[in-house]
């Protein structure tokens, strides 16, 4: 019996609707403190997302750094300052895709030295029992079999708990594409889990 479900909708911290807009305006005006405010607010969730997607803490830190470098460079392109959370996540996911492509290329030449130290099993909370950890390990192996696009879609939806619309926005794909990839990933995970069990 599966002890885990994959339903979405993790709660997100409520924020002051005008807070991000004010921060963005201050950043555009050259306010260095505002940059740090924005970073401190969103860095933890982005680092967590990057870690879960890439399964490597080192890679995740690099992605976090590059996400904010790009964000600060392009802050003028952000049309809706209140949508900064989704915008940052989209940047982060794009960089994750790029890292997957780099890994693939390096693997072809036998040069991929990525140390995966953050699989789902290792990220389990302290109080999680061994049976659930075993299921997480099974999920890790199932996710290993997926193409990057499907893996990202599945993790954003079922681990990060994004809505379909949020996941589509983060991946930069249409809702239909996102659904198709998600469906493929879910089928593969189900097959793997069923076969393994």
């Amino acid at each position, binding site marked *: *019996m*599966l*002890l*885990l*479900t*994959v*339903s979405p909708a*993790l709660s997100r911290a409520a924020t002051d609707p005008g807070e991000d807009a004010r921060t963005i305006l201050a950043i555009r005006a050259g306010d260095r403190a505002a940059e*740090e405010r924005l*970073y*401190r607010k969103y*860095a*933890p969730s982005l*680092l*967590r997302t990057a*870690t*879960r997607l890439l399964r490597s*803490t080192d890679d995740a*830190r690099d992605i*976090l*750094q590059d996400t*904010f*470098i790009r964000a*600060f*460079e392009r802050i003028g392109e952000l049309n809706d300052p209140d949508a900064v959370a989704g915008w940052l996540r989209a940047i982060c996911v794009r960089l994750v895709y790029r890292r997957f492509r780099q890994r693939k290329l390096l693997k072809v030449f036998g040069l991929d030295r990525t140390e995966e130290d953050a699989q*789902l099993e290792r*990220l*389990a*909370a*302290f109080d*999680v029992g061994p049976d*659930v950890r075993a299921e*997480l390990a099974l*999920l890790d192996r199932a996710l290993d079999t997926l193409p990057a696009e499907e893996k990202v879609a599945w993790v954003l939806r*079922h*681990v*990060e*708990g994004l809505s379909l619309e949020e996941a589509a926005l983060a991946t930069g794909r249409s809702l239909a594409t996102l659904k198709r990839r998600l469906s493929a990933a879910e089928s593969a995970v189900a097959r793997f889990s069923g076969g393994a069990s």
Partner: protein
Amino acid sequence: MKPRKIGEILTKNVDPSAIDDVWERLDSARKQRHQKRLGRWAFAFVALAALTAFVMVSYRSKSSHEIEMAGALQLASGEVLPTLFGGEDEALAAFDDGSRVVLERASALVPNTNGGGTISFELRRGGATFDIVPHGPRAWVIDAGIAQVAVLGTKFHVVRGANFVHVDVERGVVRVSGATLPVGGRTLTAGQSVDVREERASDVDPDDEVKTLDAPDAASNDALEHADAGNAALDARRTTHASRVTNETTSWKPLAEKGDFGGAYDVLGAKGVASETNRAETTADLLRLADVARLSGHPGDAVAPLERLLAQHRNDANASIAAFTLGKIRQDALGAPGAAAKDFETAIALGVPAALREDAFARRVEAYSKAGQASSARAARAAYEAEFPAGRYRDHVEEWAP
């Protein structure tokens, strides 16, 4: 056991030191990224510039590079190049580099130098149309006795008569040199032609010379049917002729006309050049004597005929060329830049031909500079720059007269 959502069983904690570390290095990473971008642009610019330079240099040096690499020219069939003849009708010869020659009736074309990036033919008689592939791997030279045609790629027609050579160009550029052409020869472009006629000295019967050396009779025509035998026959006739000659005035000119300046000087010697200088009646003879001396490695002996030409035929069309040549000899071979500067002044004043004009202006600057006449050198530089604002010696004259 109640199922749990995945997100709920994963830790939500992140390493706070990781957040701090990334923030602290964010500034330097942004600067590095900015510098990397600039570096990329700079690299792209340098790479583009290098590529452009490479393409230009490759394009410009293509001919000379290929010339260095080219081996012997062969027939298109792969056979070794034979002596080519035009029989009763025109004959076509195709070569392995794509070039072609159409030989007119009763013509004979003998390959001489073939290799090292050069192919030279002697057009012994008749006419031929050369269609040489542009930018090919070899320099082509056609020797028609009293005229030589140098070319890299073009289409032109050469006719060798008893005492004349006619060259006309259909496409491209050729350079024709000959005894009666200005020093350095004459450049012909598409649609242009030149006739080079043999000059006759009063004490020589040039027809005899031409007949004997250059226009094979029927017997020698037969000999030419077999290349080796033909060459041997001609060489034998030349030897016989040389031994027959007792008067130097009848022997050095044909050798000089054939470009054998060393042989001509051997006949004359320094004394012979001096005596012939005194006897010469035409400026062409004086220039030819100077050529024999300087091109056989005796530039000092060339001074007398050139000085006489300048002294006695100052209004002759060849006077400016003589002055220029004299300046070159004094500057390059005799180490007399002061006198050379005066010669270049004379050449310019007499109206040196356009092909030599820029050289004369530039050499004047160099000569004054080497003679230690700085103010004259600067004046000469100013004159050069005024005359040739984008001249090819601009950098040099700046060095000579800073």
